[in-house]
């Protein structure tokens, strides 16, 4: 039997990498992102280079289901940004 070491679980020692950050996104009439607000600066989306959808962990119930639509976009300043629309929570994130 291994005795209890008494040390606290160190959840803080693990940090998720590439965690989603909430962003403000304006959408067009088709629900596609048209502009993104990054660091208080609004950038137009000039092209959507790729788009895919993931639906995972649906078996854990509606509140824990992961349902995202990803957009690989190019902004007016030339940057490439990956955004997703969280369909379950109805929010926009940058990843």
């Amino acid at each position, binding site marked *: 039997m291994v005795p209890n070491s008494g040390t606290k679980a*160190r959840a803080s*020692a*693990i*940090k*998720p*990498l*590439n*965690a*989603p950050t909430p962003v403000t996104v304006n959408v067009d009439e088709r629900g596609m992102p048209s502009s993104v607000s990054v660091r208080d600066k609004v950038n137009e989306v000039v092209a959507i280079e790729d788009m895919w959808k*993931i639906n*995972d962990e649906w078996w854990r119930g509606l509140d824990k289901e*992961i349902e995202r639509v990803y957009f690989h976009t190019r902004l007016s300043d030339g940057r490439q940004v990956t955004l997703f629309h969280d369909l379950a929570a109805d929010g926009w994130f940058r*990843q």
Partner: protein
Amino acid sequence: MWQVEFIRRPELVNRPAIIVGENGSIASKGAQSVLDWSPELGPKMSRGMPLSEALAIVRKDVLLLEPDMPLYRHTFGEVLIGLEARCPDVEPDTERADSYGLGRAYIGIWGLDRLYGDDAHVVRALSNAVSQFDARIGVGENKWLAYVAASASSSGRGLKITGEPGRFLTKLPVELLPVDFKLTTQLHGFGLHTMGDIAALPPGAMQAQFGKDGALMSDLSNGIDQRPLVAHQTEEAVSEYLEFPDATVSMSAILPAIEILLSRAYTHPQLTRRYAREAKLEASVLRRPPWTMRVAFKEPAGSPTKALFSIKSKLHDPALPGPIEDIRLTLSGLTGEAGRQESLWAEVRRDQKLQEVVNQLEARLDTTPPVYQVRELEPWSRIPERRHALVRLSP
């Protein structure tokens, strides 16, 4: 040491002076003690004696001098080169870790009689090699007897111990023994004032009382010394010196000076198409003890630019204790190879280096440094944030 000081500062001649340094013994680390003294103070002084005790013995107008170890070592190095030109087996006294052995060298004179004639001629040849100093030369069957003979000889003359060494040693004070000052004080406490007193005791009793030092003292007092003479290996080095017009602490003046010294050093024939493994910088600091810094090159440096790059990375403002008056650069570890030694187990070395960096950061920040490494969690996951995570680094 005092002789070097007197050559450098002739106004000190005939003035009683003590060169004071930090005591090297573990028991009294940091305490000031006597390193050397002028002949005016006579035999009352002994090396390693605490300064407070020395001042209690001597007159109050004694001059206290801070040691200039780089200069003493440099001068002693030149003396050794002069001796080696006359005699191949020269061993500087480095048995004691502190500076007490500086200025003392043992020379193997076996076979030299064929070159110079008898011992008297050998002594004269050696004396000529160090004519600028008040050299004392002793000839004996072993290192200890030679040292004792030299201590008893007069300036510029040689003394040879012949016959029964015990008779010569019997009246000599225990202060000559190569042990700590504290131990010699203890010997006086036991009523052992001369080597004859120690020689009269059985070696076992001395060893029982003083341990390893006791056995050594017993042997030496009987004239027995088994230590072999290990000839000094001359290290090939190139040295350059530069004096500043005014004392400076500014890196914008010091770095060009180092650059000049490096350019000069690399034009030496000894360094032609060769590499240096180590650089040593020595400087006289205004109103402070001299400053020394060693830089070991990770890869042997074959040009002034490469050497300067390594020196620059180590040299920064807080490293200097004050304004410097001059600077000496010595390049050593000269080699024809430019290769870099790689480890067979690169991973292990990388982890050790990482751990070292983390430890240094921890010491500097006084907390666990925020150093993480990327670890795979679920690389197959369709959810990007679940594929990898940052975890605390533990090499």
